């Protein structure tokens, strides 16, 4: 038996249950993807709840009302910065799509196996 301090609790928390897992979709990759997306969705809700708690605490302390927050209008400079952030954010999430479409411009990509042979 292990000592508590030796446990890898991140690994143990996420460990699988014994018993072969069923896959549901026609392509098991969809099961994989859905599981990841749902975990991210949950963590997004967790963040949103944390933010909500923060807002309510700040309001309760009289520092800011949530009305003020909801009515917040960024000035032009802030608007620009927030827009850039949003663009970057979307691009990060869609990096894979971007990279796949780059082949339209660049043509068929270099075959790594061919390069291996070439440099062998």
């Amino acid at each position, binding site marked *: *038996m292990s000592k508590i301090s030796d446990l890898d609790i991140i690994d143990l928390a996420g460990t699988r*249950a014994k*018993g072969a897992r069923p896959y549901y979709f026609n392509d098991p990759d969809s099961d994989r993807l859905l599981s990841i997306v749902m975990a991210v969705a949950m963590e997004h*809700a967790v963040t949103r709840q*944390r933010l909500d708690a923060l807002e309510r605490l700040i309001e309760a302390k009289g520092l800011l009302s949530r009305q003020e927050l909801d009515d917040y209008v960024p000035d032009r400079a802030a608007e620009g910065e927030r827009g850039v952030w949003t663009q970057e954010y979307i691009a990060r999430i869609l990096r894979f799509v971007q990279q796949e479409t780059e082949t339209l411009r660049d043509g068929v990509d270099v075959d790594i196996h061919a390069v291996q042979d070439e440099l062998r």
Partner: protein
Amino acid sequence: MSKQAPPPSWRHVGRHGVFPQGKLDDASRFDFLANMNRHLATRLSPKVRESFEKRVAPRTEQALGRPLKDRGEVREAMAREPIYQMWSALRRTTMEMRQQAGRAMVLRQLEPLIEKARALNDAAVTLQLDPTLEIPRTACAVDIHCMPGGYHTELVEDDITNGANYDAGIFATTGGMLGRWNDGGGQALAQWLKQKYPAFKPRRILDLGCTIGHNVVPLAQAFPEAEVIAIDVGAPMLRYAHARARSLGVENITFRQANADDLGYPDGHFDLISSAMFWHESSARSMPLQLREIYRMLAVGGLTAHLEQPQYGEDMSLYEQFIRDWDTWNNNEPFWGVMHDYDVRQMVLDAGFAADKYFETTVAGVVDREVFPVAESNGEDYGRAALWTMFGAWK
């Protein structure tokens, strides 16, 4: 569908001396999961049925040239239905997330939790563990309901991880329907006994497969004079159960690690033998054995009573059977379907009980006003007072 209030937040769960401490993010995770379950049950699940009725059944029956003949055929046909695939995949992954959320919360505070349990258990004679007990295949062939490590696995000395994780998540999984202490079934049984058989005063009570004692504590409270024995095979469950009961001020339960196949008590020893959600985790070999053990250990005039999910039976539609059987195939409940097909009445009679002493009934829970402070607008609390199927017999 009328609009329902969201399930109560996890922060209303009852907190006893070994209940893991949840932070804001833990509560948010459980609240997300409770709402996911609600969404799947009330919004998506009716569409699964509709897809069967409108698409899958007509198409399949046309191809077969005859009506679907059993739930296995329904399952096979539904496996290709996209709405069902999505619903099942979401259900499965939600359960996996629930396990991870609970385990992460518990493991992070394992040391103080074990210390608290040790302090409460304190070498008490009412906690009887047997490290030599062989864990039956029924409990270890797979990890039942996708709970990693099952009921029995011990990670460290004096481990309670899986007991604490079980306790922590059930409120979210059931949307608070079992009350703050998740003991609605045991409360319903205790109330049924008091109302229906006020003269019945069991002196010795045995509870089979008690897990962390959720449903045996209300019995022990209802009969404070009684000596209660609660057995299970899982040591982490029993340690946690004992500490939990102690911290709730309940001292008349002995938690014992033992196999229900063979308990060794004298004939006629108990006046009441109960179980809650136990039989579907037994086996075709053990269930008749265990029922005979119950008959043997029960005193003449004694009662055995078992809370379970409803049996399928011939008048249950194939679709209903198929949906209720989901856990057999998708939630590591290998005996679930077999058990729910049984003629339990016949099995109880085969164990020795007289036909006129057998009963089946439903018992209703009491709505926990600390969890649901206001009645529904129609004042009826429809759907909140949970119902349990119960079968049993007098000896």
